[in-house]
């Protein structure tokens, strides 16, 4: 993984050396720059060329050839948001439910074992989810294909144009995994899935040794042949590539930690909606987390209660109605039995735990990154609002969406920050992005400016 990204960086810098003077520079001036670590620089400028930031701050000399946009002190520039684990450009796949001859011995792909698949071969950047993510200020994403237990590799893309190959930034950053099984062939259960992870590791490890012996002495040793599916697991088995694994509830997190301990792979925990129950263990095991901003909705009764309260408040202004409304409210309250009151208290505490999940992980020093998995993009800003209500700050949010995510992906030397030499990926808002009525105006992706209409 690191070799790959380093190679890419090298080729990028070579590119900039040879062609640097041919491409014009771009700049914003009179803008507020928000850095990944929560600082804001007012009346600042930022300059980029060839897809990389060349200068930023208050004392910047803008090159003569730069195409300059004057922000008029009203634009806010953030490092482009990074989605650390997503299926946004993954084509929809119809599950294959045809009967197989022996349901106990299906081909790999029917069991959902497809680690050799590569997203860049089939990713579709015209999908609605991609557009929705772009509208929220995302400029790059780690994308995997849809599927079951091992649906394929994870490629890191810019969210620029519609062409997958030109968006591709780093390929094969990790393997994608989940406790997901089919119904009509092996594994049809969670216990079957647990076993298959173990047996795949055994089979791939054995094949790897056989292939090595053959390569070292082909005339003496038997040729074990090839198995592209098992071979695709070698990097994870050899700890050259992490397994990005989706797990939400407490028991699923326990199960993947158990497999990690048994099989010894590097794990990135993804989605992790109940990770708040496991902060100590995750810290001890040094498991990086990409947390989903998806969480259960507020209980129905609470939503109703809040509506009623709001209505009552408004009615209070009209003094004639105030009395009748408050007596009705009291009556309703009296009818709720004690066990339901107790239940509701537990429900609210559960709801708060889920909303505060990201904050709890931050406070525990786990530095979680972001994953959009499970999240409907329509809920993104609404959920951010709830998280801020529950005590999260904008600075914390920015660090989760930028630097933390870049760190978890092992790309913090090239993206996730506004820093000279870093990728020119920004989001340009009309106000601080969590402020009310803040609007995304432009995205800069790999130095290219995309207007938002």
């Amino acid at each position, binding site marked *: 993984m690191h070799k790959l990204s380093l190679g890419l960086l090298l080729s990028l810098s070579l590119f900039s050396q040879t062609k640097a003077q041919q491409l014009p520079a771009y700049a914003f001036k009179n803008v507020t720059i928000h850095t990944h670590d929560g600082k804001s620089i007012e009346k600042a400028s930022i300059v980029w060329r060839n897809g990389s930031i060349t200068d930023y701050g208050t004392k910047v000399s803008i090159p003569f050839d730069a195409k300059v946009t004057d922000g008029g002190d009203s634009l806010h520039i953030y490092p482009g948001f990074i989605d650390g684990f997503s299926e946004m450009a993954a084509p929809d796949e119809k599950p294959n439910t045809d009967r197989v001859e022996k349901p*106990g011995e299906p081909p790999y792909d029917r069991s959902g074992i497809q680690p050799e698949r590569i997203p860049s071969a089939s990713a579709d950047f015209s999908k609605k989810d991609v557009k929705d993510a772009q509208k929220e200020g995302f400029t790059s994403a780690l994308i995997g294909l849809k599927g079951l237990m091992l649906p394929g590799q994870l490629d890191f893309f810019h969210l620029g144009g519609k062409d997958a190959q030109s968006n591709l930034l780093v390929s094969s950053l990790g393997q994608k995994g989940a406790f997901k099984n089919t119904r009509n062939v092996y594994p049809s259960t*969670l*216990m079957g899935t647990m076993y298959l992870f173990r047996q795949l590791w*055994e089979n791939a490890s054995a094949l790897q040794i056989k292939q090595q012996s053959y390569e070292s002495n082909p005339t003496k040793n038997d040729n074990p042949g090839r198995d592209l599916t098992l071979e695709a697991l070698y990097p994870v088995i050899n700890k050259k590539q992490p397994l990005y694994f989706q797990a939400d509830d407490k028991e699923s997190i326990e199960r993947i930690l158990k497999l990690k301990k048994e099989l010894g792979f590097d794990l990135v925990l993804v989605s992790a909606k109940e990770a708040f129950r496991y902060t100590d263990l995750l810290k001890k095991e040094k498991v990086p987390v990409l947390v989903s901003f998806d969480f259960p909705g507020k209980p129905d009764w609470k939503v109703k209660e809040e509506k009623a309260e709001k209505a009552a408040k408004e009615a209070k202004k009209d003094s004639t109605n105030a009395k009748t409304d408050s007596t009705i409210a009291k009556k309703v309250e009296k009818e709720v039995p004690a066990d339901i009151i107790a239940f509701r208290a537990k429900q609210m505490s559960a709801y708060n735990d889920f909303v505060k999940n990201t904050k709890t992980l931050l406070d525990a020093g786990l530095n979680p990154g972001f994953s959009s998995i499970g999240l409907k993009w329509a809920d993104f800003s609404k959920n951010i609002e709830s998280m801020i209500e529950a005590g999260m700050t904008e600075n914390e949010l920015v660090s989760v969406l930028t630097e933390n995510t870049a760190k978890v992906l092992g790309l913090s030397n090239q993206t996730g920050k506004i820093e000279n030499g870093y990728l020119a990926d920004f989001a340009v808002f009309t106000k601080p992005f969590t402020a009310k009525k803040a609007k995304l105006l432009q995205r800069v992706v790999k130095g290219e400016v995309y207007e938002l209409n």
Partner: protein
Amino acid sequence: MNLTRKDELMNFKMKTKQTALFIGFLFVFGMMVNVASAQKKGSVLIKNATVITITNGDMEGTDILVKDGIIAEIGKNLKAPKGAEVVDATGKFVMPGIIDAHSHLAITNGVNEWTNPVTAEVSMEDVIDPNDVGMYAALAGGVTSIHVMHGSANVIGGQGETIKLRYGADQEGLKFSEAPRTIKFALGENPTRVHGQGFNVQPRSRMGVEQIVRQTFDAAIDYKAKRDAYMEEFAKWNKRKKGDQPNPVAKNIRYDVINDIIAGKVLVHCHSYRADEIGMLMRVFKDYGVENYTFQHVLEGFKVAPELAKHKAHASTFSDWWAYKFEVYYASAYNAAIMNKYGVVTSINSDSEELIRHLNHEAAKVVKYGGVTDNEALMMITLNPAKQLGIDKYVGSIEKGKQADLGIWSAHPLSIYAICEQTFVDGTSYFNKANDPADMRLVISPEDDYELVVSAGRNNDSCMEGVFEVLGEQTHSHE
């Protein structure tokens, strides 16, 4: 009964306003969960009860002293050490915690990996659901340990897990750590129907079932020879690291489990009904040297009781449950009593999240229909299932040095009027009728309604769970 401090707190709060009630409730609930997840080994003195020891008769007016989860003393006028809880059980009966040798409670996502006739590699250990409120209902019926089993769709099914009902503990915390490993086998209609009838895969007949067992055992023995030879070669190479690494024989998890069965490390629990197939498996096991196994259901066990005894095979059956499919039409409520009379270690199981709540009634039926003694009947839900699960050194009777898994009952547990009042696991109270909140769910989703409770019943946790929908059949017979 004496109220504990927790109970008193609860009672006090009940008399106050609703708001105070729910704060109190949460407090008590929180304390209970904390205690449970820390897996506290409790210390308690139960005073002046009729103690049903199972192994040493019934002892009236007797105290049981529990220290750190272990029964320290049984006798009269025992004194509680400092800080130990004291429970006055005057007029009440104390019996060992009930053990259910056949349960499908507390399983996540699938009871049956039905897709292959042999799935020895899968294990309930991986998929325990610690949040199943059914465990609390079982505790309320005096149950303290259950054998969580794979379903019966396959000739050789998955491994089981024996757990203690430390409700509130996590997956690891529920494990009965001293219990040996177990595995489910299944004969007859279920595997022939699923694999033969459903997919035209062997076995299609009872003959095929026998051959699946033999073929699998032979293949496992063959694999072991190759794997052992490789491991030996590897060990030699590993010392000097000279030359090429020997070509590996990959570890085969499925066959490793089969070899562990042959080595006596995994106890077989075999779903069975008919006498002929019971006889068949005993012959097969004799050929491969497998001992210490248990027939589950074993409805025609009474026809081969002497043979069962001769092979030292155990039997775990229903009291009076039959005629739910063709191979089960020939059955008798006297089955358990007859097998017991021939010296077969016999237990009564539930195989149901409803029946598990009153296994004492099921045991009582064996007194009614087979005329066994009260003690023999209670043994069928305590010491005998403990033997079948290989945990009788630790639980199953009230003896000094055994783990303090106990139930306090309002009357003799075989009485239809008896109510379980308190259940202890490792000396810690996990159920107390005096403090029994309506809602004992451990995990509550913000989106669930209060009324949403998983319904209990025989059809809901059947041995064939998950199979018929795939086969596209409408029938939902239990077994």
